[in-house]
């Protein structure tokens, strides 16, 4: 059923564009049904799952490679399904009213959103590292397409590319980490890895690589800037992907693997440090945002850091708080994004400076927002408060250096959270002096009912904390509790007057105090931002890579044939040459010469070859190459190869004829338009000489390695009479290796037709135009371009 649901998402997504062509509203409405069904199914399975019987399914898709789609529905997956499918259904329903009939992107957006919902569902239920990776990257691709929209706006293109580059960079390193961990564990089943975590150096490296994937996907510092940039997407998309679900994938993976790795410092230390830093940076930047959507985006970054810390430390209570906050954040952040969408829709702006008096005009919307913002700020009786209390309590109970540092960080982050929650409400709804009150257009119920659902869910789950507690604690109980007090803690709205409540009060008071000085704070955040920013870091890295690419291409691909050939020769000398010197094995029995007649023949060949270097006239050079060829024919005869010599003489003669045919049309001398510099020629000569000597030495050394005549040849000699031939060479060519000869004939045919077509083309040109066609290269303009 689970696999079928995932597949149904992906299949229906393919059909949606056809529906959207008739009615975009119907397309989004249809898309919302499937996540809703998933949520209901998951709720039906919940009692059994929470009772300890996780639903497992698997489908072997490449059994020979041990690749299976393993899925498993457990407590953590249930929490995520509430976000992915529950919030997903709400946002898809909202989209039906947000996107109008004239929207050009609605059809692809509806399909992509549902596709994303399916991929995300697959991700959260995956019980196999590789399955998880596949869905992980599918969500990145869906995000790229949704942020990029139709690509008509530069902001969209840039944001989409940035999101893709950052998350896929992390995803690829995560894949490496998965392979390291999976191979060390001997299995890729997540449940099996968690049950008996592997250890060792490879696992440590794997953990660090996995963390890169986690940190990029969940927009942790210093990778966070892609998330605010992704706000270029339509608001419902941002609310779904970049607040409620996709960016939680990294947090989710930490929650998944914490039971296995939380005891090792390489797991929790980077996550806690970066998580706290992210919480503070995100909260601080949110205080300077003037666009409501960007404010929420930085708020999301901040909350993701919070979640990261809670899941990374691997304690029971921290995990319970994390699971509760995961739920709470999904609900309030989805609400707030939908509020921004509606505000933008009815007023035409999201700028804090342009909105005034909206609270009086739309009290209902303001109330829903206030509930969500209060949950975000951690005010009772909302779910956000319940979660934050548990988080404070967890680190108070832990104590020690880590508990103390984290507690201070969380309180500071919460102060910022309260401040930007207040800033959101003030910015969207307050009546500001000196700003004309906006007069909003009437909003259809479709634009307000969905956000009330998520907003009220946060309130109800806070009031009836035990419901959320069952879910959160079912996950938290998979982690060890340090003390009996921690083991006995249950999520509840009221724990009496204790230190955690005091910290909540401190956060609230501090946040409101910060909000009163909002103008100065906002100015300060902008001033600090100009000094250092992670976004600039990203741009520097990308432009650095591009410069490096140009540099490397410019050095490696210089476009000069002599340079390429010289490089090849250098490698021939360097690599095998070094091997030759290192494993020096000069055979002891090198004869000076086998037959005396080889000496005069050799002198002729060498002399003719060397003379070619000096030849200025083309015809001289061709005659010399002929002399070399005939000389080698002579050497073949001495060697006892009359057939070879015959072929050599024939070929040499034919080649000479061909050369003469061409030479009569070319100038008599080699024409070099730029006389090559002497130093360069000397260098070429030295290189060629060294390479030639290397080949000669190789010939001797390698032939010295031979210990006996080849036995294959004896077989040819023995069998040759059976072919009816007395000449063994001809027996080999036409009988034993006849297929080679067919290949050789084919080469000849191809070369002949190529030659013929080149010659005929020239004749054709001459007949047609009477003169030679001048091509672009070779003109003075071209020359100037090359030499600058």
């Amino acid at each position, binding site marked *: 059923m689970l696999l079928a649901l995932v597949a149904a998402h992906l299949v229906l997504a393919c059909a949606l564009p056809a529906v959207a062509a008739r009615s975009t509203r119907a397309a989004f409405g249809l898309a919302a049904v499937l996540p809703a069904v998933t949520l209901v199914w998951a709720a039906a399975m919940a009692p059994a799952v929470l009772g300890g019987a996780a639903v497992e399914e698997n489908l072997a898709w490449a059994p020979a490679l041990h690749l299976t789609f393993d899925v498993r529905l457990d407590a953590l997956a249930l929490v995520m399904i509430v976000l992915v499918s529950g919030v997903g259904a709400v946002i898809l329903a909202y989209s039906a009213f947000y996107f109008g009939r004239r929207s050009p992107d609605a059809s692809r957006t509806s399909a992509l959103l549902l596709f994303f919902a399916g991929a995300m569902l697959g991700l959260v239920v995956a019980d196999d590292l590789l399955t998880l990776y596949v869905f992980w990257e599918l969500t990145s691709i869906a995000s790229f397409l949704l942020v990029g929209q139709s690509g008509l706006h530069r902001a969209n293109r840039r944001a989409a590319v940035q999101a893709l580059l950052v998350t896929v960079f992390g995803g690829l390193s995560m894949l490496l980490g998965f392979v390291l961990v999976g191979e060390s564990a001997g299995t890729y089943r997540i449940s099996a890895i968690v049950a008996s975590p592997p250890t060792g150096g490879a696992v440590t490296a794997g953990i660090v690589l996995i963390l890169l994937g986690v940190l990029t996907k969940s927009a942790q510092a210093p990778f966070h800037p892609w998330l605010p940039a992704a706000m270029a997407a339509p608001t419902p998309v941002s609310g779904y992907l970049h607040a409620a679900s996709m960016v939680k994938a990294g947090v989710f993976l930490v929650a998944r693997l914490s039971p296995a790795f939380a005891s090792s410092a390489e797991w929790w230390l980077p996550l806690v440090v970066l998580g706290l830093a992210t919480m503070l940076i995100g909260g601080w930047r949110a205080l300077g945002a003037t666009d409501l959507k960007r404010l929420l985006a930085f708020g999301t970054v901040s909350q993701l850091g919070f979640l990261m810390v809670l899941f990374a430390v691997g304690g029971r209570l921290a995990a319970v708080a994390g699971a509760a906050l995961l739920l709470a954040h999904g609900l309030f952040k989805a609400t707030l994004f939908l509020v921004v969408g509606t505000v933008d829709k009815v007023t035409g702006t999201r700028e804090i400076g342009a909105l005034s008096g909206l609270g009086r005009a739309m009290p209902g919307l303001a109330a829903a927002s206030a509930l969500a913002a209060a949950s975000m700020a951690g005010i009772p009786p909302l779910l956000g408060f319940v979660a934050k209390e548990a988080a404070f309590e967890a680190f108070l109970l832990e104590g020690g250096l880590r508990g103390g540092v984290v507690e201070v960080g969380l309180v500071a982050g919460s102060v910022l959270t309260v401040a930007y929650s207040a800033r959101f409400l003030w910015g969207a709804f307050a009546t500001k002096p000196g700003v004309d009150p906006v007069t909003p257009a009437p909003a259809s119920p479709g634009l307000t009912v969905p956000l009330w659902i998520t907003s009220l869910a946060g309130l109800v789950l806070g009031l009836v904390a035990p419901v959320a507690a069952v879910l959160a604690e079912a996950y938290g109980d998979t982690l060890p509790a340090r003390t009996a007090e921690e083991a006995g803690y249950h999520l509840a709205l009221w724990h009496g007057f204790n230190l955690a409540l005091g910290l909540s009060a401190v956060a609230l008071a501090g946040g409101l105090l910060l909000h009163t000085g909002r103008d100065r704070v906002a100015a300060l955040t902008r001033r600090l931002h100009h000094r250092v920013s992670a976004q600039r870091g990203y741009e520097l890295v990308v432009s650095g890579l591009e410069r490096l690419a140009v540099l490397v291409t410019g050095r490696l691909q210089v476009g000069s044939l002599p340079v390429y050939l010289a490089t090849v020769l250098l490698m021939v000398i360097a690599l095998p040459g070094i091997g030759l010197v290192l494993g020096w094995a000069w055979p002891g029995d090198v004869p000076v010469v086998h037959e005396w007649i080889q000496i005069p023949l050799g002198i002729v060949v060498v002399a003719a070859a060397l003379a070619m270097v000096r030849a200025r006239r083309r015809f001289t050079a061709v005659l010399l190459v002929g002399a070399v060829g005939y000389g080698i024919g002579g050497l073949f005869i001495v060697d*006892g190869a009359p057939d070879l010599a015959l072929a050599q003489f024939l070929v040499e003669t034919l080649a000479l004829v061909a050369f003469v045919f061409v030479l009569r049309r070319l100038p008599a001398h080699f024409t070099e338009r730029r006389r090559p510099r002497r130093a360069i020629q000397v260098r070429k000569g030295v290189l060629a000489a060294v390479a030639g000597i290397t080949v000669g030495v190789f010939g001797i050394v390698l032939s010295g390695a031979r210990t006996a005549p080849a036995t294959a040849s004896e077989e040819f000699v023995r069998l040759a009479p059976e072919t009816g031939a007395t000449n063994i060479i001809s027996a080999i060519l036409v009988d034993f290796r006849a297929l080679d000869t067919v290949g050789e004939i084919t080469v000849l045919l191809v070369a002949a037709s190529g030659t013929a077509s080149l010659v005929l083309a020239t004749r054709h040109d001459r007949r047609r135009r009477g003169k030679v066609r001048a091509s672009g290269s070779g003109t003075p303009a071209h020359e100037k371009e090359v030499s600058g």
Partner: protein
Amino acid sequence: MTTVSLAMAVVVAALYAVGFYLLLQRSLMRVLLGVVVLGHGANLLLQLTGGPPARPPILGGSAEGSAPLADPLPQALALTAVVITFAMTTYLLALGYRSWVLVGHDEVQDDLEDRRIARRRTPTASMGEEADEQGDEVGVDPGSAAASGDPVGDRS
């Protein structure tokens, strides 16, 4: 059993060196001659590695049984190589001729585009976007509600 004698190694080395040197030249004709000389060197080396001078591998001759037979397999391979070298020579010759007819000289030229990249220090485009591209945005910003196709608040 070393089959390559010192004298023959010198001949092979000289042929390869001259072949390499000619290959490094810019005149297409010289490059072509370099290929031919390299081919000669390679064929000779192939034959030499087969064994020291011996009786031709032909059966039923008068000298049968008196001396060892030369290894026939390298000879057959070298013969194939000789013919293929010839095919390549004629093709390159036709190519060089055609190039001379079209361009007016037979010189190996540098690739313009590569040279241009080598001379450039910075990329002209980043992330597929031209650096100096301005504006040219089509439609409304999709991030805003105005692009949602049915803006409720569109009162203009």
